[in-house]
């Protein structure tokens, strides 16, 4: 089993901690002038998203997590599972709601997402940074409250709700930044 020593720690490294795959977000070298050295890391649990601080005595090693990011096309959902396919191999993967989390609201059939696999099992999915989705419901015209910055809520075809400018109408396609959940432009 591959492992990493503290001297190899850097952000982005995938390690196995407390039985879960985690990624190092930040690594700080700590050492009194005369004394023991430590690696202080912030790790994000790739399964739960939780961020924790951990300290390692220098020279300790941890098991590497077999985590791989793969581009996959989102196919469809049957209500219980969301189905993805690797375009090159036609290999298919199914993910449940738990692994999908908030990403589900941005998934449009045919879109290519990044699926993170751990030991070959899907762990999480990252939607494209920008998606183009149709507005299926929003109040018409300028009937919004201008005091609220001139926006109104719009429901998109995937179920996501975003704030759009007052001039945007139902039935239009808009571009949204999935990282912030913010409206970018009309398409």
């Amino acid at each position, binding site marked *: 089993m591959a492992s990493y020593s503290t001297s190899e720690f850097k952000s982005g490294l995938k390690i196995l901690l407390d039985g879960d795959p985690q990624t190092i977000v930040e690594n700080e070298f700590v050492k009194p002038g*005369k004394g023991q050295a*430590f690696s202080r890391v912030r790790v994000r649990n790739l399964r739960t998203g939780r961020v924790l601080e*951990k300290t390692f*005595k220098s020279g300790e090693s941890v098991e590497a997590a077999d985590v791989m990011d793969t581009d996959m096309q989102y196919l469809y959902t049957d209500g219980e599972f969301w189905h993805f396919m690797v375009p090159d191999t036609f290999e298919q993967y199914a993910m449940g709601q738990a692994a999908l989390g908030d990403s589900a609201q941005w998934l449009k059939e045919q879109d290519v997402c990044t699926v993170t696999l751990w030991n070959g099992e899907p762990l999480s999915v990252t939607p494209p940074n920008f998606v183009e989705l149709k507005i299926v419901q929003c109040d018409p015209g300028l009937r919004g409250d201008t005091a609220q910055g001139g926006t109104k809520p719009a429901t998109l075809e995937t179920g996501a709700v975003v704030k759009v400018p007052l001039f945007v109408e139902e039935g239009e396609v808009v571009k949204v930044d999935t990282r912030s959940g913010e409206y970018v432009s009309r398409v």
Partner: protein
Amino acid sequence: MARRPGPSQGLRVSETAVATWRPCATQARVYRARLNAALRGFLAGRGVLEVETPILARGAPLDPGVESWRARAPDGAAGYLQTSPEYPMKRLLADGAGDIFQLARVFRGEETGVRHNPEFSMLEWYRLDFDDRRLMDEVLELVHAVVAADPDWNRPAASVRRVAYADLFQEALGLNPLTCSAEECAVAAQREGLGMTGQLDRDGWLDALMAMVLAPRFAPGQLTFVFDYPESQAVLARPSAHAPGYASRFELYWGDLELANGFHELNDPVIFSARQGQDLERRRRNRQTIPEADRFFASAMASGLPDCAGVALGVDRLLMCLLGEADIARVIDFPWGRA
């Protein structure tokens, strides 16, 4: 026709190297020159002589807390880059050189991070007939003198905190640094939210608690002296005359940043020899490499070091404090990675 080698032939320049050939301390460069001049001016003004000693030596300290970079002579002989100019400077002292200082480049193991560069600048000076308390006062006078050298520089708070190592641990964590067990330290660390991977002995835990629990609580801009370290962490400080089990060693912090380390210097060759043995034993236990010991230094200790106190101050870190920089790479033009 002879083909002219392009830039990609022979020496290959990577894309990263293209992006990082430039210096990174353009702002700090002028201030570093000013700081060096102020440090030299302060010590020269007190009659302390500037000296130069070898950067590359045949032996290295056995202290398990510092790792030396190894060099190799063309004939295969081993050499070491200095981790501090302490040993040759003490040979000068033993020879009767009197009060001396040095602004030296020093090198330490794998120390890389926002507060560490493996190569850094150290101001080290020795004062005859000073004890640690008197040297602490002089360190303070030096800091206050140099901050006045430039109106742009941050100044530390006027009041200075002086706290004994034992009081610091007792008051904040309820631990007695001489008698607490590794388990008690682990419990205290857990309580303070410090999750640790790896086996530590008592001194390892005390280092962890100092660096990651206690020092981070020092107020920003406040100078703190911590003095009377446990004898197990004495390095080359003499045993304390007034606190049994402790050594006459101090450290200076600016905010939570460790700036200087000083000793009322050990000059008892018997205790020195015993400590060398303990260091060797700890290195063996930790499976650390064992460097060649510095025979010249051991002989100088045997011939007799005068009563003196000495201190080493991290110049790059002092510059960080003066300029309010959090990353040491902002005050070094070519930090490791660009060096």
